[in-house]
Each structure stands twice: as C-alpha cells, then as structure tokens.
C-alpha cells in the first residue's frame, strides 16, 4: 500500500496532485459559475504553444506559457470586438487551437526535447520536476489568499456583475485578477494533469459539489475537498494501474460525479416520498 511513497518522484507527484486538486477545485467553482469552461479548455491548449516556443527560445517555461495564454485571451477579445460577425466561442476555437497546433508542429518537427511534452499533453507523474513543486505551492497559496480576501466581492461579481458595479465593487479589476488566477492555475497544473485533461480537473469537482449543496460558501469548500480527493486518489491509483495521472484524476472525478448525480436524484425522490422538501 505504501510502496509508491518510497520513491522520491512519486512523493513529489503526490504533493503536487493534492495542491493542484485544491487549486482546480476552488478556481473551477468560479469557472463553472461564470460559464468560462470553454475558455479554460481553449487557453490550456493554447499554452502548449507558449510552452514549446519558450523551450526552443530557452525562456522560462512558466513565464512563456502564461504570457502566451494572456496574449491568446487578448487576441480573442480583439477579434470579438472588431469583427462582430464572429462569436466568442468561434474566436476561442480559432486562436487557442492555432496555439496548440503550433506547439504540436514544433514538437513533431524537432524530436530532441528533454522536457517531457507528452506529459504536458496527457499528464504524467514523471513529468513533475522538483521546481514544479515550488511553483504549484506558490500558486496555491496565492490563489487561497486571493479567494479569501476577495471572497464577498468576487461572489457579488460572479452572481450579479451589473449590480455589483453599482455597489462599488471594482469589477474590471477583479475580472483581470480572475483571468490571471485562471491562467496561473492552468500553467502549474499542466505537467501533472495534461492540457487535454485540464478542463475536466477544473470543472468536475465544482459540478459534483453543485449537486450536493445550494450554498455558495459550502460549494467552495466542498469543491476544494473533492478536487483534492480526485487529485490524490487519481495519482495514487495511477501508480498501480500504470495509467497517465491526468486521465486517472479525471476518471476518479467522473466516478464521484456519477455517484453525486445518482444521490441527488434519489434524495429528490425520497424527499417527495416522505413529504420533505428537497431543494
């Protein structure tokens, strides 16, 4: 049972999995409620382009991927603003897939990478380098600080952006802060989860928790806890099953989601049967 913990790389991956789980679970709540799942999905893919280009140009991986993600978001915004015939979802499709394609093209052209880009695509425990632990720790602490300190204002902005502005909530500033939070989360989660799986890790804990509670405060805590469980459990099982850690984290999450789905249906039915109000 404890055998994998004898390996340094596994312990490292396990710690990162727990932190990535909390991070994705918390940030995912806002992503889901602001209906940003698709942009999260797109940005994580686009970042592969930034990661590869920054590697080729001997540039810091985290900085490269973040800047690339940020520029992609700006480009999407520009296209939607200046060519009104193009919808936001279509613009996301163009820009982010182009970034992803560029990354894949460079990888397939030069096959001499020491950095594990297969891990970045599909997620791999072995792809987690020692410096990644620090990056994930720093990002998780930053995210926790932001979420705690802006909790009430961010909730107002997420629930009711128009009225939040009337009540003096700095909406433009918080929107930018959240965009940076999302980009940072995607970048540090990339190696463990893989860009193709990232949106699952981000969205599944939040929607699972949503089936179990109607209160925002409880949703946030529950989603963080479910994210952590998915991350740790998925990574642990991946050692024995020899399955990519990203896929495993998403699959564990999917099982929990199905259970929560069945439970919420059952609860509603039992409630009606016993005449108790369920909501």
């Amino acid at each position, binding site marked *: 049972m404890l055998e994998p913990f004898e390996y340094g790389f596994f312990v490292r991956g396990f710690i990162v999995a727990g932190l990535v789980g909390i991070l994705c679970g918390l940030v995912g709540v806002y992503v889901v*409620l602001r209906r940003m799942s698709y942009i999260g999905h797109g940005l994580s893919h686009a970042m592969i382009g930034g990661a590869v280009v920054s590697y080729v140009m001997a540039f810091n991986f985290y900085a490269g991927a973040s800047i690339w993600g940020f520029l992609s978001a700006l480009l999407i915004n520009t296209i939607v603003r200046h060519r009104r015939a193009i919808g936001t979802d279509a613009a996301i499709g163009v820009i982010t897939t182009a970034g992803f394609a560029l990354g894949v093209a460079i990888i397939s052209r030069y096959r001499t990478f020491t950095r594990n880009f297969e891990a970045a695509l599909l997620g791999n425990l072995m792809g987690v380098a020692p410096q990644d632990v620090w990056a994930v720790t720093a990002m998780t602490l930053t995210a926790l600080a932001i979420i705690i300190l802006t909790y009430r204002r961010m*909730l107002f902005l997420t*629930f009711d952006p128009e009225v*939040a502005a009337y009540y003096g909530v700095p909406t433009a500033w918080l929107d930018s802060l959240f965009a940076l939070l999302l980009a940072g989360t995607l970048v540090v989660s990339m190696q463990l989860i893989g860009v193709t799986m990232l949106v699952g890790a981000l969205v599944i804990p939040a929607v699972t928790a949503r089936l179990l509670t*109607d*209160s*925002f405060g409880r949703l946030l805590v529950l989603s963080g806890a479910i994210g952590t469980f998915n991350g740790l459990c998925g990574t642990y099982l991946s050692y024995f099953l020899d399955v990519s850690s990203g896929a495993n984290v998403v699959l564990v999450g999917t099982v929990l989601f199905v259970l929560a789905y069945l439970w919420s249906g059952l609860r509603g039915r039992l409630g009606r049967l016993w005449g108790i109000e369920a909501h």
Partner: protein
Amino acid sequence: MLHPQPHPFVDEQPLIELRGATCGYGGHPAVEDVSLKIWPGEFVGILGPSGAGKTTVLRAILGGVKVYRGQVLIEGKPLGQRRMPIGYVPQLETVDWNFPITVEEVVLLGLASNKAWPWATRRERQRVYEMLERLGIAHLAQRHIRALSGGQQQRVFLARALVANPRLILLDEPTSGVDIKTRDDILHLLHQLNHQGATIMLTTHEINAVAAHLPRVVCINRTVIADGPPAQVFTPEILGRTYGARMVVIHHGGLVLVAERPHAGYEEHLVLQGEYDAGAV
C-alpha cells in the same frame, strides 16, 4: 393603500437631479434631454412602455450608463463623487435563479462592496436577520433562492437593497411577473418604507395597478413627457404621447382609470354595426 403626506421640500437640495441628461449605451442615446429632480422623502414612479428608457434613467443615477450630454447630480455633486449608498432592486427576470446561493448569502452581498474579510461579522449577520425579519422572510434564510415564491424572491432582493440602510431605493419593475396579491403587498411595503423616511423610485409600465397609487408619476418615452401627481398627468393627450396609443381616462369617485381605446378603424366598424355608442365615454 397608504398615501404619504406631501413633504415640505423648501430650501433643501434635491437628492437626485438630472439636468438635460442624454444617456445611453455604445454611442446610442436611450433617453435624451431628461431633466428631473427627486427630493428627499419622495415616492416616484417612472412610467412608460417597454423600451422607453425607464431602466436607463435608473442606471444613469447608479452610474451604469454613459452620460453624453447634461449632468447627473447626487446630493448636488457629480456622479463620480457619490458617497451616498443607493439600494437597487433589479428586475427579477435578470437574476440567475440556478446560481448556488442562499437567501442569507444574497442579503449579505448588500454589505459586501469593500470587505476584505470573507466572513460576515456577528453585527452584519444580525443586521441581515433584522432585515429579513422586518420583511417577514427570516424563516427562509437558509433556503436556496429558487425555492421561494415570487413575492418572497422580490423581498429577498429588497432586503439586499435595504440592508446597508440607504437613503434612496431604486426598483426596476418590482411588480412585473408577480400575482395581484404579491403586487399589492409589495406596494404596501414600499409605502411603509417611504413613511419611515426612505426615498423611493420605481419603474413600471402598469398604469392602473401601480402608477395610479403613487404620489408622483414621471411619464417617459425617450424623454420626459410629463411629471406630477396621477390626477394631473393621466390625460388622454399625455398618455397617448407616452404609449403611442390612444387611451381613455375615466374619473370615477376620486379614482382615475385608464383604458386602451380601440383603434379608429375598429370603432368605426362597431359604429357601423350599431353596437358601440361612442358618446358613452
């Protein structure tokens, strides 16, 4: 229905003043040259058809639209210097009812604007419960917002608007989409709040059910058509210009009733049929 006494407005400054304000969105004015003074303690209804710019007037006061020409003054000062808290109740249709949030969490938002501490203090929680108690929905505090009736939902958002103790409360179509009983409850409640000193402004498109019960009505259709007590502004001429349709105004025992007049062709048709006595109204 309660009616507030006329307030003495002498040598006070208006709470809100619009001076020839032209406002709108993305370069397109939605209302033009609006001049309006709202005095402390007033209860004012903004009346007009949909698309007339009623909500735009509220948004102009809240700083939510571009002001292209003219001025919007709050307590005599320009919008950017607003210190006075304003309570705002949006139209219920604009609320995301699937959002995971309880009644208590919604009302707490009314106190959220510059709080760095995530948890509500005991005093804030107490304030929220007092407000819910006053509106008769304290027992629903832990409920999800969808698990409420239309009247209760309206009260939740009214509680959020009132919790910071604002001097001015703005309500966007508070009576649309609720049943008659709820509508009367809401109007009664607003009259009570007004009696306790709150200045209230609401928008409505309902002439008989809502506007006729308010002490002051401002008729709007892209600009101010008329402004005054219902008995004064409810004339066929003014209402015709406001709604772009012919209206019949009936005075009956101190009550003003407004009805839509069948269009000219229909009237003639009836007269020809001998079934309609045009002299009766």
